[in-house]
């Protein structure tokens, strides 16, 4: 999986923002990670500690909010929960569901010192 590359990107963005804010260090980073995004939060946490080491984000905590998968079923004409990407509508069993949320991969905010 590509958690390592994603983590490098998270740390890079966090350090960039910290520099802009004149912060001495980053103490917490808040992420939105969709349940359908094919990213393991545990792997992100593991990589984060390693990547942040030796930077102003060293020792920062990663707070990961999981957003649930949802989609719009074209046949039922309503929003339905989605357990897997490109999965069937739990109501009608058909596959005409357009994903509306659950693939987020975002840095929402961070706490700096």
């Amino acid at each position, binding site marked *: 999986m590509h958690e390592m590359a994603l983590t490098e990107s998270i740390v890079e963005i966090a*350090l960039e923002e910290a520099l802009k804010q004149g912060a001495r260090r980053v103490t917490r980073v808040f992420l939105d990670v969709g349940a359908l995004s094919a990213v393991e939060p545990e792997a992100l946490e593991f990589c984060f500690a390693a990547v942040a080491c030796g930077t102003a984000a060293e020792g920062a905590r990663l707070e990961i909010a999981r957003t649930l998968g949802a989609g719009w079923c074209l046949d039922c004409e309503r929003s339905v929960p989605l357990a897997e990407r490109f999965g069937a509508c739990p109501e009608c069993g058909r596959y005409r569901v357009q994903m509306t949320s659950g693939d987020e991969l975002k*840095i929402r905010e961070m706490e700096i010192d």
Partner: protein
Amino acid sequence: MCSVCGCGEAQIVLDKDKAGAHAHAHGPHDHPHDHDHDHHHHGEDGAIDYGKGIAGAHVPGLSQERIVRIERDILSKNDAYARDNRRAFAARGVFALNFVSSPGSGKTSLLVRTIEALKERMAVTVIEGDQQTSNDAERIRATGAPAIQINTGKGCHLDAHMVGHALETLAPPPGSALFIENVGNLVCPAAFDLGEAHKVVVLSVTEGEDKPLKYPDMFAAADLLLLNKSDLLPHLDFDVGACLANALRVNPRLQTLIVSAKTGEGLAAFVAWIEASAARRAADMARG
């Protein structure tokens, strides 16, 4: 990635020329020190709120720390590099394809055959991505097409920044096709835009009809599926119809071609697809 230019930990090796070797500076490094209070902010109603974005607002006696809103996609760095690549391709009229597949699907053999069939009509250059060795670039160069190898080291995919570096050296000529052969992996390369016109996913008939359902992101991200090694079909129980149905379930807009790098079946159609797609893209660019 480093904070200077976004280089990853992976070493970018362009042939023997280490284009990625520059100093990696880090931001200011303060040693962590302990605080004896929690780092959150109390609202007037006593609620603990991390999400108000109170940048710059100190709460005396509580904490020097502040929350800043960022709201940036984690992949935004890569996407910015991809936009630069896409702009460079458009400016030079380069038609770029990003070939993705699992290892052993026959991508390199397919590219060699395709280049042989295409090179009289269109100049072709190639970027080869692998964790190690430059074997694939050498196979491509044997066709006469200029090729550059990117070794990603531990990296499981090419990113747009690596491709941008490779372009500086490769300098694809105007009006040419650029084939980017990604690292063999059906998961990670789906998430990393390289600036290509289309992702082309290669699946071989020795792999199983349900690959599109097992790795849906890749098939959803692609515009064309090449079902390779069709010469082996008589020896296998592979159900072509079921495979294509699975692929269309995750991506109803996916175009599909059945090909064989060994016998050349379907390659004329693929070459025609490349020429037609390149012409359409050039026309789109001309219209702005």
